[in-house]
């Protein structure tokens, strides 16, 4: 078999990732969420056929449309084959089983607005609070974002067999507890929306901060998280929910710095040393806009505060000119909302910017005594950094070495190595 040209392969990969979520969503709408695996089978079959037909170079003019058409044809074959053994989506089961109505019903479900609606249903089902959070993440990546099992394993820093188990258990739970495939309404909606936003936030963080070394996967994670959040905003009722915009703002403002954070060798570049000309000004503008749209209602959420902090960084002309005092206040508010060692760590670091390195060192040691930072490489890296700034090279090297031993990220290790080298020279 001839290999696809690299260009064609990249196109196919990208397209599959993009379309897989749409196809699985609409197929699940037809088959019912209890038949999620059937939907995945039809998807696999469709992608397989695309690879077979396209590898010769005959990529159709509208590949996305081609995929949908083939998926539809395969769906009707599947329905004909399985209609005596299975029940499909309850509201369509009878219509799909009769030849009077099957094709017509299918034609009317493979429409753009139905596809979008199905994707929303899928988001709420994948992020159902009855599923454990790690199951929610894996399922979202698999069904909505078109990630393969190895990609999910790599993105979530675990093994393929663990991911397989999580997916299996999640699907089993969906079947056994008969979780529904709907967008909740009324007061339910907002409670469930919180769970959805959390998954999106975690996906984005996984992409932005994780120690996964595959840059493509990390960037895709961030983009997929943003895409899912955008999908939510298309429902008019969601417009009443400021958190969505705060989360979008937060993601845009961070994503704007994505390319500047990593140098040509794949090494992490810290904020202070980033080339601000590389920051994506369009994304920053978009983020600021989302942030102002999020400013309604009565509650200030963690998403709001984190977005505000990111915005403060984004608009600063230089590291030195950053509004550290404002950022400090935001962190104080954030600490009250969701107390965590990471936030206290950040507070200590900012103290270093406003009151000098010695103040930061004192704050960090106080944090260490509270016993909440063990095993955190960022903590030791920061401590090392501030000792270096006060001229205490030996302490600095010790703490940086400790940080180096704790991180799993190759990029971070590389960064720490360079610092240690500079201190020793």
């Amino acid at each position, binding site marked *: 078999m001839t290999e696809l040209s690299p260009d064609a392969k990249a196109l196919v990969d990208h397209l599959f990732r993009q379309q897989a979520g749409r196809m699985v969503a609409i197929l699940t709408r037809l088959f019912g969420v209890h038949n999620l695996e059937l939907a995945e089978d039809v998807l696999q079959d469709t992608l397989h056929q695309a690879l077979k037909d396209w590898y010769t170079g005959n990529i159709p003019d509208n590949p996305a449309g081609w995929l949908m058409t083939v998926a539809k044809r395969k769906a009707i074959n599947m329905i004909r084959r399985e209609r005596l053994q299975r029940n499909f989506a309850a509201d369509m089961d009878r219509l799909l089983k009769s030849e*009077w*109505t099957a094709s017509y019903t299918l034609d009317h479900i493979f429409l753009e607005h139905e596809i979008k609606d199905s994707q929303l249903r899928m988001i709420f089902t994948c992020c159902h609070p009855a599923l454990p959070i790690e199951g929610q993440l894996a399922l979202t990546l698999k069904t909505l974002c078109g990630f393969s099992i190895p990609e999910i394993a790599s993105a979530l820093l675990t093994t393929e067999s663990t991911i397989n188990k999580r997916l299996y258990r999640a699907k089993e739970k969906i079947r056994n507890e008969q979780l529904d495939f709907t967008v909740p309404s009324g007061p339910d909606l907002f409670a469930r929306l919180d769970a959805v936003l959390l998954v999106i936030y975690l996906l984005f963080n996984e992409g932005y901060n994780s120690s996964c070394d595959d840059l493509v996967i990390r960037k895709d994670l961030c983009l997929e998280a943003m895409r899912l959040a955008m999908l939510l905003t298309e429902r008019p009722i969601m417009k009443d929910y400021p958190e969505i915009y705060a989360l979008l703002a937060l993601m845009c403002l961070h994503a704007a710095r994505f390319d500047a954070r990593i140098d040509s060798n794949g090494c992490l570049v810290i904020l202070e040393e980033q080339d601000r000309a590389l920051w994506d000004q369009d994304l920053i503008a978009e983020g600021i806009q989302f942030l102002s749209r999020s400013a309604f209602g009565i509650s200030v959420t963690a998403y709001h505060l984190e977005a505000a902090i990111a915005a403060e960084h984004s608009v600063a002309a230089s590291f030195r000119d950053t509004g550290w005092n404002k950022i400090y206040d935001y962190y104080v508010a954030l600490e009250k909302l969701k107390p965590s060692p990471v936030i206290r760590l950040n507070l200590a670091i900012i103290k270093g910017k406003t009151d000098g390195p010695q103040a930061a060192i004192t704050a960090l040691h106080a944090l260490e005594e509270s016993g909440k930072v063990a095993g955190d490489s960022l903590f030791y890296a920061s401590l090392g950094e501030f000792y270096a700034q006060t001229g205490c090279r030996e302490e600095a090297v010790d703490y940086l070495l400790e940080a180096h031993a704790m991180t799993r990220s190759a990029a971070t290790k590389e960064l720490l190595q360079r610092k240690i080298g500079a201190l020793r020279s």
Partner: protein
Amino acid sequence: MNQFLIIVRGSDHSTASPEKKQQRLERFNEWVGKVLNGRFVSGAPLEDTDARFLKSRTEILTDGPFIEAKEMISGYIVIQAKDIQEATELTKECPLLDDFKLELRKMIPMQQ
């Protein structure tokens, strides 16, 4: 709720154009959606060919139903309705009536 069988009498499989059949199917589905509105149970259109008329266990006339096209059964539909009056009202709006005759029969529910 009772179930009713609608027998579609008459056939134009061999004479109607594909466009006409397509249009009829569209209108049929609109009827299912708007008029029956959840009361469609099952059904299928039937082929004219591949038909057998069995007179007894031994006597099988193999060449089709041997009746005139207008008496042939070209499909069946099962619907739900409260009673024969409601079933009749629903069936009256079925677009298949433009081309065929419809026979409406109440199905005997299974005894509990």
